[in-house]
């Protein structure tokens, strides 16, 4: 099948790529752009490890076809730290021990970031709703919530 050319913005930089018609955004990010911070855990949009922010919304990048996002803006975990300065959420995850193995961390951070873009002061229940699609097997979620709460105050 013939490839299509698509132009979109990743972490503030415009990219033009040739992608297969069935190519998923996660594969484009990880394999073409070598942005391996975005993780694949299930491939069916259940675990949230592959969460990125697409035009301001948290999405599972395993469920998005790259060919369909021309003109869009994608933010990945690699784009959170700007000019060597950590995003306040990243700092809070470190300070609040919101990390164990770290595999779900990028997806958690992107879901949290998307929440705060639209709602800078969410309460605990709103935080939980935003993270509902992100599975973590290590932390029991508590310290992740505490980290987001510390930024959302």
């Amino acid at each position, binding site marked *: 099948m013939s490839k299509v050319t698509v132009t979109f913005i990743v972490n503030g930089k415009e990219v033009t790529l040739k992608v297969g018609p069935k190519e998923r955004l996660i594969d484009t990010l*990880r394999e073409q752009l*070598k*942005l*391996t*911070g*975005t*993780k*694949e*855990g*299930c*491939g*069916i949009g*259940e*675990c949230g*490890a592959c969460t990125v922010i697409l035009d301001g919304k948290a999405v599972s990048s395993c469920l998005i076809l790259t060919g369909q996002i021309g003109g869009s803006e994608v933010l*990945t*975990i*690699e784009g*959170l*730290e700007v000019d060597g300065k*950590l995003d306040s959420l*990243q700092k809070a*995850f*470190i*300070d609040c*021990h919101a*990390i*164990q*193995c*770290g*595999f*779900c*961390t*990028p997806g958690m*951070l992107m879901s949290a970031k998307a929440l705060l873009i639209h709602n800078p002061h969410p309460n605990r229940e709103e935080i*939980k*709703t935003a*993270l*509902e*699609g*992100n*599975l*973590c*097997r*290590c*932390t*029991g*979620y*508590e*310290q*992740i*919530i505490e980290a987001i709460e510390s930024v959302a105050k």
Partner: protein
Amino acid sequence: MVYSKVNKPIIRVDAYEKVIGKAKFAADLYFPNMLYGKVLRSKYPYARIVKIDIEKALTCPGVEAVITADDIPNNEFGVIVQNQQVLARQQVLYIGDGIAVVAAETKEAAAKALGLIKVEYEELPGIFDPEEAAKKGAPLVHSELENNQVVHHRLRKGDTERGFAQAEVILEREYTTQFVEHAYIEPESLVAVPYEHNTLVTIYGSIQNPFSCRNAVASVLKVPLNKVRIIQNHMGGSFGGKDEVMSSMAARAALLALKTNRPVKMVNTRDESILESYKRHPYKMKYKVGATKEGKLAAMEIKCLADSGAYACQTPFVTWRSVVQATGPYELPNVKTDTYGYYTNNVYTGAMRGYGSPQIIFAQESLMDELAEELKMTPMELRLKNIYHNNSITASGQKLDNHQVSLEEVINKAVEASNYKDKYREYSKPQSGDKKRGIGMAISFRGCSLGAEATDAAGAIVAIQRDGSILISCGLAENGEGLKTVFTQIAAEELGVDIRRINYMEVDTSVSPESGATVASRSTILGGNAVKNAAHQLKETLAEIVAAEFKIKTNNLDFKNENIYEKNKNQKIISFDEAITLANQQGIFLSVYGWYKAPDISWDEENGQGRPYFTYVYGCQIAEVEVDTATGQIEVLKMTAAHDVGRAINPACLKGQIYGGVMMGLGYGIMEEVETANGYIKNTNFDEYLIPTVKDMPEIIPVIVENPDPHGPYGAKSIGEPTLELGAPAIANAVAQATGKRIRHLPLNLERVLLGHSLSKGGTKK
């Protein structure tokens, strides 16, 4: 004792790279010229392989190699029993057995080639129930064996017949538990690189136990251990799960890499992961207990059957922990316990956080509540009458005389933190409406580290560099729990230096001292002691140099705040950096191996008597639930978890273990089950295999209890597994109080709560 680095919630040393997305997991590695490996797995749970035709697959564009069992120098491996097939040779023994592996230029080409391999099978009638497998004359899962028994452990203490004769109340109950998936969020992944740095094959991977993986790969390739090098990557969770399944993947990738002379990457999809990886053992448990009217336990008889699935894997040791701990932490004069493992054609079972304890604790702690009800006592009263104290004798005949037996303390602290007594009284009264509340407790004692399973020792290298920066390398592997941080804190405490001076290296089997596996909640106590030992040796070396230079006695020196002081005078003599310069000038070697061997233990396999573990930890968890009796839904409102850990090296990491363990215990208790039907696995992804989400979280109250252990570094013991083993029975006991109905089968899902039985059995294949 006031510490400056340990016993403090210092931030994780690996946190920064994990929040910026630059921490490299195995699937993130790309090597030049790399191929992708894929596995063809069985179509049937049990079948004879008549013929494998790989000709077409070999001609598929992009395919570089196809390997079957015939290409493998030594096809069977295993940590305890060497009977796990790298690839099925004559028979497939379970649905996840691999038959062939392909290496191709792309994942797509590899997947396409799998479809072109033709396998002719003769399907065989399998055995899927360990009770059937145990019967005389049952068909054999492993035809070379005499029967299907993997193992039988016995424990005999006193005389149970006499004990039951004296008992005034006798209860007999049966409990069962289910297959459970580890559900690490990172699926299995690794890259095998041939002929790198004078090594036959180097494997970079998400590997829980790099040394057991090396043993397996070397034995499969029939080469010496020094030709195989395993380098651990950041690991996206394991919980006991990335051991044999990774050894198998590593062996397959190594074979492909050597055949093609190119790096080979293998990454499982979630479906492949759940199909192939080993699970937590389902247990069938028969318990008989006798007690006096006053509630003093007189005798207990226990029989546990574990489903080992197709391979022995860790079954012999998992069921051994069960036989040691099956009675729970209760004084009993008369005990007879038998634990068995049987082969079946189900998915094989192995290590999973808890390791043979969550099953028996579910049974024994449910049983204690049932007995309390029979005796018209509160569950707490009955427990307090029978629990271990200092100098109690366990079922194995071990006198608990070398550490603080803190059961009563952990119970009291959990009771207080959860307001258990008031709530128990309140929920015992009749409740109106569909929603009923209950509160339940569970307690445990747990042997630390491996016990009599295997030799128990660990090593670490602490190396001070020319500029005073420090490298640590230990043979125990970070699983995500915070091991690197804890070991760094211990080295920093010992040397009196800042955490930032220290860099903790990944495990590299060609460099790190072999330390056994990161299992059995043993890292802090074993590896921590090894790191402490290494740092202490360095401190003594530096003290000698400084003492000679400044004409002070070595024992008069104090290492703290990046300086070396004269004790008592509190006067700085020299900075740590200056001391290193001095050592460099004198040509003193500042790199040492630390070693720690666990105290001696003993075990008599005939009667289960001895000193199976050198120390124990104690815990109590209390669950408060609300059950919707109209739907069967359980909402866990609050979990209180009190654990004696000896000493909390990092209280924040420790709380993380408690939160995570409690949630995993909750999943085990009320939602998780790998559903099998005649050996087929029905739920192979997270849409059907449900693990707790953030919305399932109860309020969790961690209670850290510290009774420093003489054997632990700074008194520290274990926390990883105790946190997970208590949730299910505490919840089951709370549900029983709320509903008045006792559920003896895990998980306590909607149907079991509402109808009293499961609806999920039946059907054939996915």
